């Protein structure tokens, strides 16, 4: 919106408000604007005015607070609480202190699921961001509007469908007679074919490939939009300086994309550590426990094994790990923005 347009709108709006406000009595309005108080005698005390303003503020906030506290904040607090108990969800619970946490970090099946989720960061986060970065640097700017439109639509598709559906799609892609094996055979690599998600040696990597597919397109579009916003004169300046390709990358492109890379990192790391939909639909954590991740493990412990306390301890550990990994990335990005 242009400035002139904006001020014109202001004038129009304030005009219409003035007209309607004059027809109301001063006492009926809840407005606390100080400029309006006509006589000192009718001017409310400062604390009364502040109190009334705060009441208005709280009223605006109330609906959001109600839903948020009831259905997000309170369950989070309760997860901490549950994690200190042995409870099967039905009978009385017994307080066990931190022994559930001890189990999370000593039972190989439980801490193994956490290790799996960190392994997935390679495929969900590092590889797609690296490839997206290379692509963005090479393409730099999609000049043609149609090309950009078409590219964006296709690259966004994996992000628009439900993660569970992506799990189904890739179960078929990676099946015994699925497209991946078909392509391998066509390339003469028929001896490499296998049931990728059913082989405990390849299953976790196969899940990683699904994550790679989910994240790559989005990262490319995000980094392309960032690289298009870098001032061209900066590139010309270092080119005059005689800077080569690598120096340009490290002095101009990477610093210019810091914000976007931070966003990609945060988003993809959370997706890897807290993955559920894709894993649940493609392997359910199997074969054996080779693709078990904390999300699926929490679900299994809580709802099929009725070990609510242990599930909660794992859930809290997952949350803390996500915050520990994402926190520094976020801090870095926001500090640079200011």
């Amino acid at each position, binding site marked *: 919106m242009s400035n002139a347009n*904006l001020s014109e709108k*202001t004038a129009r*709006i*304030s005009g219409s*408000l003035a007209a309607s406000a004059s027809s*109301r009595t*001063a006492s009926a*309005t809840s*407005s606390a604007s100080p*400029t309006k108080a006509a006589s000192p005698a009718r001017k409310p005390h400062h604390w009364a005015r502040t109190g009334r303003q705060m009441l*208005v*503020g709280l009223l*605006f*906030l109330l*609906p*959001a607070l109600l*839903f*948020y506290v009831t*259905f*997000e*904040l*309170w*369950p*989070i607090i*309760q997860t901490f609480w549950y994690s200190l108990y042995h409870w099967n*969800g039905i009978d009385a619970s017994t307080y066990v202190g931190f022994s559930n946490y001890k189990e999370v970090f000593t039972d190989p099946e439980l801490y193994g699921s956490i290790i799996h989720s960190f392994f997935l960061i390679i495929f969900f986060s590092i590889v797609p961001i690296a490839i997206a970065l*290379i*692509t963005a640097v090479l*393409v*730099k700017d999609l000049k043609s509007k149609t090309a950009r439109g078409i590219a964006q*639509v*296709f*690259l966004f*598709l*994996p992000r*628009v469908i*439900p*993660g569970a*559906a992506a799990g*189904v*799609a890739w179960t*078929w*892609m990676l099946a015994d*007679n699925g497209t991946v094996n*078909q392509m391998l055979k066509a390339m003469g690599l028929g001896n490499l074919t296998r049931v990728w998600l059913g082989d405990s040696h390849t299953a976790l990597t196969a899940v990683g490939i699904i994550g790679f597919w989910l994240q*790559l397109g*989005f990262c490319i579009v995000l980094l392309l939009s960032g690289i298009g916003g870098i001032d061209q004169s900066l590139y010309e300046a270092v080119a005059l300086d005689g800077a080569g390709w690598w120096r340009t990358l490290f002095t101009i492109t990477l610093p210019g994309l810091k914000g976007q890379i931070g*966003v990609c990192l945060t*988003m993809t790391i959370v997706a890897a*550590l*807290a993955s559920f*939909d894709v894993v*649940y639909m493609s392997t359910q954590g199997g074969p054996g426990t080779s693709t078990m991740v904390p*999300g699926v493990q929490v*679900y299994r412990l809580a*709802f099929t094994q009725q070990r609510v306390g242990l599930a909660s301890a794992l*859930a809290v550990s*997952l*949350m803390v790990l996500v915050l520990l990994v*994402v926190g520094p990335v976020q801090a870095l990005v926001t500090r640079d923005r200011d």
Partner: protein
Amino acid sequence: MKQKMSIRVMGNLMLILTIAFSVLPFLSMFSAALQPRGSMPEGIQFTAHPHWENFAAAWNMANITPLLVNSTILVLVVVPAVIICSALGGYAFARLRVPVKGLFYALFIVGLTIPFETLVTPLYYEISSMGLLNTRWALILPLIGLNLAFGIVWMRSCFEQIPVDLIEAASIDGAGHGRIFAQIELPLALPSVSSLAILTFLSTWNQFLLAVVLENDPNMRTMAGALQSFVGQYQTDVVLLNAGALEIMAPTVILFIVLQRYFIKAMLAGSVKG
């Protein structure tokens, strides 16, 4: 100049490869879905006689009609509720005096990166104790609450970007907060509101974990949640499974293609802020 050209070509080649990679699973599903029922399809293959009727069969077996109705009702309640709560709350944080504002705002920030797995267990028992398990409300109420952390942060930053002189002009004229909010700020915030609507729609429609946990009856779930039982039932029927899964994805994909400009804008901006 010549070198620049070759770099461009390489970049475009990579872009095209990525696009092909993004589309490949969809093609693969389509190819399988068009094979004759009961056959064992292999990878991507062309058929002279595509069996389009598979989609009709899958539509009935995956119960798409009740699912569509259900998910639509869910979205029609959750999205407006989230927008109303976020707009009012975001406005309070951006413009109004609220006691211990910083603390309240920090509470919402906390919710931004909390994975749903963390709270799904207590949520199950909470909904159960409210007697709402397996009802429509079991998904509606939590999904309103769980979308608000982002909604509040989003709407606050949107209201903060509206120039203050607009509001000052109006308050000099004696308009109350309710009027300033409804007649000046909210109309100016409409683009952000529409982006919030799109993002809330996507996260609600695609919600899987909560749907599986809080609704036993697959027909009460979201489209995504229903996939679980459908896959369980037809695991061996590759043709039908792919046809059904494509139908379950179809609504978001179609809506995305129709409103692509708005979706892409919302998703890019949403990721930067979230």
